[in-house]
């Protein structure tokens, strides 16, 4: 997919540190500034076009049909029973080609295909096509399907002892170092605790949607995708056609949070139906189908063992997790991903085992691993601190390390202790009472909690093209996406800073696989990866402008559309002839192995627990983060607000409930699956620590989109304990779990 060789490509593999960045020497003065989003006016006026909103002639409306059993097979589909309804065009079933589950992020092959065998309740098995949405919906509801049921496994608790070891993934399924059992026996102080987190749903506001348009044997899919480049490959493989024949367009994406990393069932169904009907088809998943048949974050059961000396120094860390997925799937929630490198400690055991259940696919949701894994680790640290009689911040600092405790390589940049210290000062941590349940305001018990934040940093192969036009304006194009993260804006800022071209005259083209391939948005790698690709394209253009000016590169200044050097000044547009373009390409390299790269920070929460009802209110929350260069202070802050709020949801409200009789989701809509609403979220304070990471990429930025969630829930949980003295280890902490333990009014 990355085949250049046109002499206009500037490619960099991160084999060495990249200490110098043009973003530090640019004089346009826009990088890091809190600019308004360049796509803002379109979004607030309703004129940004999301996937289901393209106006296409001859569109047929498709409504998906989900299986009504949890395990078994389809005996028959009586399409004729609904075909005669007014407006109905056809019922399309393709038992072999329809995808059983969405694909995981970044895969280049097809996801598991074939839907005659039903492996989970709600699995998409057919699509009904009609001239109107209403007609298609009615026919989809009435479509008679006969099933043959078979025994399934739906109950995690009942099958937890049948767990198997999944294949190694981005982290090994099992890792051991030293002897945790022995260290637990020998240590002065230990904790051995089990934490539970339920299944969760990303619940992006825009449901998964695709419009499929065929032109001869080429498919254009307007679709809601975080990663269109690999998505097009997955779609091509699923349909048995060449990836060159698939174009995905995803200009605006109504949130993803991992749920739109890979293709989802509506994409293949729409493509097949459009081919069969010979006309474009739109398929939008109903909200209940997004819950039933896209992807969940797995539930987890985490046993955390910590052993420490009286000084708080950890001698052992054990983090053994059980998660769940379908029998056909290998993805496991990487619960211990942050545990591998967050704290020092010689003896370590970090394991992931999997319970095979007939429930919808488990896959990525915002900060896979850390988001729930740090509930276990960071709550256990809080419990250990209490047992040691240490301040929880002091315990974390004593175990801070500049060396990866497993790989024995340096951390690329790490300011955990500073984040904890600065955060404590800004939050007023000194007002916290170490003893729980002693601060009251009427019916409310007040407490504070802290947790470390960390999220592994990743770089993914990505490219972007930048063109300077004769009028001095520029265009940046890449198959990168903006899922609300701010990509449109930060990529324009990078180009503007290096080229001295005002942001207002830069046209952004993202979310189209006809543009240079990119890894898209996922795993917080988007800014670092696509941003570096834009950087490299601009670096080459800058060099070409210096040649055109006939000045050495280091004496060229680009600002406000002018090139200045050698006491001469020319309009940049006058230097580019009919136009000048370059493509930048970044690839991960040896730096990934030679350093351990992650973003860090700290979360602080103050909660009130109502002593009568057990209601928990988050009163204040502060996050302080170090994630390399902040590219736009406004959008970066918003990313952190979003992550912290996901943390509030994890701690207090989000709980996807599976019926243990057939796996059917009990709360498959936004009324019953409770994501935080405005009234649940107080003023959130976000601070950034100035940092450059020269090992990460040439723009020196690390991921930020998931850092805000990593540890956030634990800070809330720890604050609840500090407030009321009840330690709940089963998320979310609803009133019923607190009531019995609350002190008298």
């Amino acid at each position, binding site marked *: 997919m990355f085949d250049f060789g046109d002499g206009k490509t500037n490619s960099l593999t991160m084999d060495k540190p990249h200490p110098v960045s043009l973003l530090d020497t640019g004089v346009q003065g826009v990088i890091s500034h809190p600019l*308004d*989003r360049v796509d*803002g*006016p*379109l*979004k*607030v*006026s*309703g*004129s940004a076009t*999301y996937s289901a*909103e393209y*106006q296409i002639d001859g569109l047929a409306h498709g409504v998906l049909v989900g299986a009504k059993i949890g395990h078994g097979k389809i005996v028959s589909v009586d399409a004729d029973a609904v075909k005669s309804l007014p407006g109905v065009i056809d019922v399309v079933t393709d038992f072999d080609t329809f995808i059983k589950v969405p694909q995981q992020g970044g895969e280049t092959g097809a996801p598991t295909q074939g839907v005659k065998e039903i492996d989970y309740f709600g699995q998409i098995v057919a699509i009904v096509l009609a001239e*109107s949405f*209403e*007609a298609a919906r009615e026919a989809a509801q009435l479509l008679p399907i006969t099933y043959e049921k078979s025994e399934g496994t739906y109950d995690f608790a009942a099958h937890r002892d049948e767990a198997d070891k999944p294949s190694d993934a981005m982290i090994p399924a099992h890792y051991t170092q030293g002897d945790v059992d022995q260290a637990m026996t020998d240590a002065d102080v230990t904790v051995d605790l089990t934490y539970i987190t339920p299944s969760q749903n990303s*619940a*992006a*506001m*825009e*449901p998964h949607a695709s419009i499929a348009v065929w032109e001869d044997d080429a498919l254009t899919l307007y679709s809601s995708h975080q990663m269109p480049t690999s998505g097009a490959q997955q779609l091509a493989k699923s349909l048995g056609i060449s990836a060159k024949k698939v174009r995905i367009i995803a200009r605006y*994406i*109504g*949130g993803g*949070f991992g749920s739109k990393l890979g293709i989802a069932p509506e994409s293949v169904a729409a493509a097949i139906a459009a081919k069969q009907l010979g006309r474009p088809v739109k398929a*939008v998943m109903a*909200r209940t189908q997004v819950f039933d048949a896209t992807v969940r974050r797995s539930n987890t059961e985490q046993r955390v063992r910590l052993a420490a000396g009286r000084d708080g120094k950890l001698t052992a860390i054990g983090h053994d997790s059980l998660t769940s997925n379908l029998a056909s799937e290998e993805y496991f929630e990487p619960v211990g991903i942050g545990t591998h490198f967050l704290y020092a400690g010689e003896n370590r055991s970090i394991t992931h085992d999997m319970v095979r259940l007939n429930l919808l696919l488990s896959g990525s949701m915002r900060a896979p691993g850390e988001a729930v894994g740090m509930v276990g680790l960071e709550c256990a640290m809080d419990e250990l601190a209490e047992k040691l009689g240490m301040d929880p911040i002091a315990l974390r600092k004593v175990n801070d390390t500049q060396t990866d405790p497993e790989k024995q390589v340096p951390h690329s940049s790490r300011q955990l202790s500073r984040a904890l210290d600065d955060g404590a000062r800004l*939050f*007023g941590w000194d*007002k916290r009472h170490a003893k729980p349940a*002693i*601060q*009251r*305001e009427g019916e409310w018990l*007040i407490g504070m909690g802290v947790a470390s934040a960390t999220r592994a940093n990743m770089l993914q192969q990505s490219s972007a093209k930048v063109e300077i036009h004769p009028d001095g304006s520029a265009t940046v194009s890449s198959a990168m996406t903006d899922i*609300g*993260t*701010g990509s449109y804006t930060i990529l324009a800022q990078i180009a503007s800073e290096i080229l001295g071209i005002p942001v207002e005259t830069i046209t952004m083209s993202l979310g189209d696989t006809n543009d240079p391939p990119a890894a898209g948005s996922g795993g917080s790698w988007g800014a670092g990866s696509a941003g570096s690709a834009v950087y490299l394209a601009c670096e080459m253009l800058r060099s070409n402008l210096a040649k055109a000016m006939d000045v050495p590169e280091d004496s060229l200044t680009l600002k406000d559309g002018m090139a200045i050097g050698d006491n001469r000044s020319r309009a940049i547009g006058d230097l580019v002839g009919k136009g000048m373009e370059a493509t930048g390409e970044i690839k991960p390299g040896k730096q990934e192995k030679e350093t351990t790269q992650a973003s860090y920070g700290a979360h602080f929460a*103050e909660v009130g627990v109502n002593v009568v009802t057990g209601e928990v209110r988050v*009163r*204040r929350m502060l996050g302080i983060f170090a994630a390399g260069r902040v590219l736009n202070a*406004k*959008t970066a*802050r*918003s*990313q952190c*607000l*979003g992550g*912290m*709020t996901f943390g509030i949801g994890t701690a207090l409200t989000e709980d996807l409930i599976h019926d243990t009789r057939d796996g059917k989701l009990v709360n498959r*809509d*936004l*009324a019953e699956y409770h*994501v*935080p*609403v*405005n*009234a649940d*979220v107080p*003023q959130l304070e976000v601070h950034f620590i100035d940092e450059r990471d020269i090992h990460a990429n040439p723009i020196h930025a690390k991921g930020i989109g998931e850092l805000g969630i990593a540890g956030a829930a634990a800070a809330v949980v720890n604050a609840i304990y500090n407030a009321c003295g009840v330690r709940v280890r089963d998320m979310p902490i609803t009133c019923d779990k607190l009531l019995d333990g609350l002190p008298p009014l």
Partner: protein
Amino acid sequence: MQWTINGQRYVAEVDVRTSLLDLAREHLGLTGSKKGCDHGQCGACTMLVNGRRVNSCLTLAVMHDGDEIMTIEGLGQVGNLHAMQSAFVKHDGYQCGYCTPGQICSAVGMLDEAKKGWASHASASLTDAELNDAEISERMSGNICRCAAYPNIVDAIREVAGLGDREPVLVAAGEVGA
């Protein structure tokens, strides 16, 4: 049937099952109003019907014969934004943008309700409904934002309501018991 939408009169025959939201999105090309749940649970479809905010997915087009309807497209356009739209841009009161048209229509309708003195769950009494952060958050809780721009949405609404900058964050100083 006829509707006045954003000041323009539309006349059409429509399926009795068509929601007001689908009328706009699927029949009139007005896709600014969003479908997030189709069940009145998320607020992304919020429109102003005769000045009041309504979940347009929960009401049928045929129930609105003759009504005056305002969608996000009518509130303001690129280059001619409504004060609430500008405030959302300034305060980053969105991220992915999908709930945003509903948030903005809801905010405009909400300020009108508050101006009329209508109380909310957060009001001290039925007759005392002074707008503050808690009131704004409560009244805007029918509009879900999964990106969680909530603090910024409150800031944007504060600006339009003329409430100025946020109340400062105070460190807790409750009484200390035994």
